[in-house]
């Protein structure tokens, strides 16, 4: 688009100030969202690189590409980076920061300076984790089980654990900020019943972040105390209890799994409604299921410990409670499916990611039932079955949702459109590559292939080869968007304020939004997703 001589580009948050310091000291939630986007993209590809090396090693049964010490560091660093420095912050830190104020008609989050501080704290934690990698890495697994981590490991445990310890505070600050923002800064008329479903999911996520994160902070802190001062909290030789660590660890890390997936579910609700131009099927049920998942998340940590030596009675309770999670998860999947009914479904790139999400999340959720079932879990826990299950949720679910959100909101964030055909191709490549990578892992898991094995019996090779082939396709699928998003920054067509014909306040301001978001404070007068409907045909499924 050429700009007529004399016309002025409307000032927006990107053009307000070009100096570097204006970015490094910004308190604009949109710029902080972009800063997080840059950091997380970096960590995602670092974590992905470790995964790639692992998959290369596993092409052959013998441990012939890297030493066992190296392999153990690869899977540890893959887990640490991906979980704590990509998945936990991911959608809240990038899209939550950018869009929560826009979606509720606010000028910024409640505590803009704390928001900037969270990004610095996050990167300080990230730098410690990176330093541990550069110095030689950590070999404890991302779970840091004691007494291996507290006594036996000769690797940079303190540095990596310190990085996660620090990063936890950024997570707490973001959660706190979102809770207060949602309570206090909603536009006039935006009642709780009119909040976008994405905001509901961010709210539920924030509750978990604030309440659960201190537990891992304490657990990792105690590992530090054990290693430095030999107190023996987790060291059986000094009368400590190594299983206590597992309780503390999973008391955070199971809720953290929902920190990772809930925002993805929120994105999914936005995408399905926008691209079918349909009202969500059962708004209250979808919003309520987010809160139900947040509450249940605190009551199921023991399902990671069915063979760890906890009492049989405890295992029975945790198994039953874990099955309760099936209810709100099922509500989500059924509701999204029903929302398509009599919709006007478009196949734009974000929708392809959203439809892929439903499929992969369904498989991930159903295989979760296998793991909640006590006697089956005994066989498949600590095998590739578990690996496949949580990758279906974390990667098939969350990363699909993250990419769906990227494509959905990119025009709003940058004012540019990405090439649609390339976008659809990337969604297809990611979907195919993902399934080829992880579906074979279910099969080898039930066959008895343990996780974290550098070398393995030859009968598993066929599955590992399929998985590695899939991983290479998946890698291409992830690099492709990086290329065309960067390309679109310069060459993309202008997006316009509402390229998807969506509802929601974020589309009622120019793209990119001005620094203060809205010219005047919007007033909300109707329910969300009030898409104009056809009047000629109605009905219910």
């Amino acid at each position: 688009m050429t700009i007529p001589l004399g016309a002025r580009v409307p000032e927006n948050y990107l053009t307000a100030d070009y100096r570097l310091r204006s970015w490094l000291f910004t308190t604009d939630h949109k710029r902080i969202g972009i800063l997080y986007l840059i950091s997380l993209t970096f960590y995602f590809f670092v974590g992905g690189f470790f995964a790639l090396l692992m998959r290369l090693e596993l092409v052959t049964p013998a441990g012939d590409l890297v030493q066992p010490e190296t392999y153990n560091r690869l899977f540890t660093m893959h887990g640490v980076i991906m979980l704590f420095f990509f998945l936990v912050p991911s959608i809240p830190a990038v899209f939550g920061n950018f869009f929560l104020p826009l979606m509720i008609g606010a000028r910024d989050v409640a505590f803009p300076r704390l928001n900037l501080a969270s990004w610095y704290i996050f990167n300080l934690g990230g730098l410690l984790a990176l330093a541990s990698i550069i110095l030689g890495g950590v070999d404890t697994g991302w779970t840091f089980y004691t007494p291996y981590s507290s006594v036996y490991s000769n690797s940079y445990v303190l540095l990596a654990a310190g990085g996660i310890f620090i990063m936890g505070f950024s997570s707490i600050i973001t959660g706190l900020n979102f809770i207060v923002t949602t309570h206090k800064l909603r536009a006039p008329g935006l009642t709780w019943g009119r909040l976008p479903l994405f905001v509901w999911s961010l709210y539920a996520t924030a509750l978990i972040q604030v309440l659960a994160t201190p537990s891992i902070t304490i657990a990792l802190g105690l590992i530090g105390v054990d290693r430095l001062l030999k107190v023996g909290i987790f060291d059986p030789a000094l009368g400590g209890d190594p299983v206590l660590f597992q309780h503390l660890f999973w008391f955070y890390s199971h809720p953290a799994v929902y920190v990772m997936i809930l925002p993805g579910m929120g994105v999914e609700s936005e995408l399905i409604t926008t691209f079918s131009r349909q009202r969500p099927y059962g708004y209250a049920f979808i919003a309520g299921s987010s809160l139900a998942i947040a509450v249940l998340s605190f009551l199921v940590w023991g399902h990671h410990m069915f063979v760890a030596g906890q009492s049989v009675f405890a295992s029975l309770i945790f198994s039953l409670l874990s099955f309760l999670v099936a209810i709100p998860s099922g509500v989500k999947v059924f509701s999204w499916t029903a929302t398509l009914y009599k919709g006007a479904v478009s196949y734009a790139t974000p929708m392809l990611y959203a439809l892929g999400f439903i499929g992969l999340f369904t498989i991930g959720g159903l295989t979760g039932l296998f793991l909640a079932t006590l006697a089956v879990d005994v066989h498949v826990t600590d095998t590739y079955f578990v690996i496949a299950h949580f990758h279906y949720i974390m990667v098939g679910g969350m990363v699909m949702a993250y990419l769906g959100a990227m494509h959905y909101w990119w025009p709003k964030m940058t004012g540019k459109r990405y090439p649609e055909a390339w976008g659809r191709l990337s969604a297809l490549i990611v979907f195919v590559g993902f399934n080829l990578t992880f579906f074979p892992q279910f099969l080898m898991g039930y066959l008895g292939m343990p996780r974290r094995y550098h070398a393995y019996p030859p009968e598993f090779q066929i599955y590992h080869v399929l998985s590695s082939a899939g991983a290479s396709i998946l890698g291409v699928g992830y690099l492709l968007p990086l290329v065309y998003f960067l390309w679109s920054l310069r060459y993309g067509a202008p997006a316009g304020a509402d390229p998807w014909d969506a509802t929601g306040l974020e589309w009622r301001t120019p793209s990119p939004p001005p620094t203060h978001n809205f010219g005047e404070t919007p007033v909300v007068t109707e329910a969300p997703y009030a898409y104009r409907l056809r009047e000629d045909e109605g009905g219910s499924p």
Partner: protein
Amino acid sequence: MDSGFRIFPERGSTNAEGVDDLYFYLLLVSFVFSALIFILVITFAVKYRRRPGRERAARVTPQPALEIAWMVLPFALCLVMFVWGARLYVRIYEAPPGAMEVYVVARQWMWKLQHPEGSSEINELHVPVHRPVRLVMTSQDVIHSFYVPAFRIKQDVLPNRYTSIWFQAIQPGEYPLLCAEYCGTKHSGMTGRIVVMTDPDYERWMSEATSQGSLAAVGLQLFRGLGCSGCHTGAADARAPRLEGLFGSRVQLEGGRSVVADEAYLRESILDPRAKIVSGFQPLMPVFRGQLNEDDLIRLVAYLKSLAVREGRPDQP
């Protein structure tokens, strides 16, 4: 163990049959629900695709009955999974009376398996077919996990604690034994095999295996050598509790509590006698923590258990 292509693991134990039946139920539920979702999503996405003349959605009124149904029905199916899975799970922790006992000591990166008769094996366990085998396990260093895929059993092996699990093999053969809990550099090399033999073959193997005497007999020597017999005389006026018939019985403790004397209790009372003081006795016994290795502890525990049998008690609590 063949290395051909398979999509389903071999079944080597009674437990494997039960777990597999449940697994098939789970597969069936999963296939039905994923097929339902996939078909609906694809059908709706195609049928209601946006096209000229159909740019808008039609009004759909959510049906509360449907929403209740898709909460209740799946949960009912889940309850079946819970009850079924729980029944099998409880069973693998309750060995039938008279089970053969094998002591397992794990350490980085090997398994040591000891038969009560005294022979010990490294990374290999020979057992007879059709007989329940109970494993009493501990670790000398980090957490390991005893995993036999063909038996569908797995149990973490913890330092400073006994855990146990049992199995009954249904077919002679060799089955891989794996460590399933990451335990350090050579974790993936911490493997072995379970050799299941017919009864005659097992008897022959047992008679050829070298033994320094049964665990209980060696335990008795330790018991005397460590001076235990000085106080634990078995007499009514002894300074220490009587040990005959102790294992499996309920012990009254100081302070009014009571505890069943299982292996964990025996172990704790040897290493740290003051943790649980038997009612009516003074805490005079020296602490043995750090004085005994896991092998000697097992011998002592085996000796104490043998005292219960001699009293005519069953060898199971």
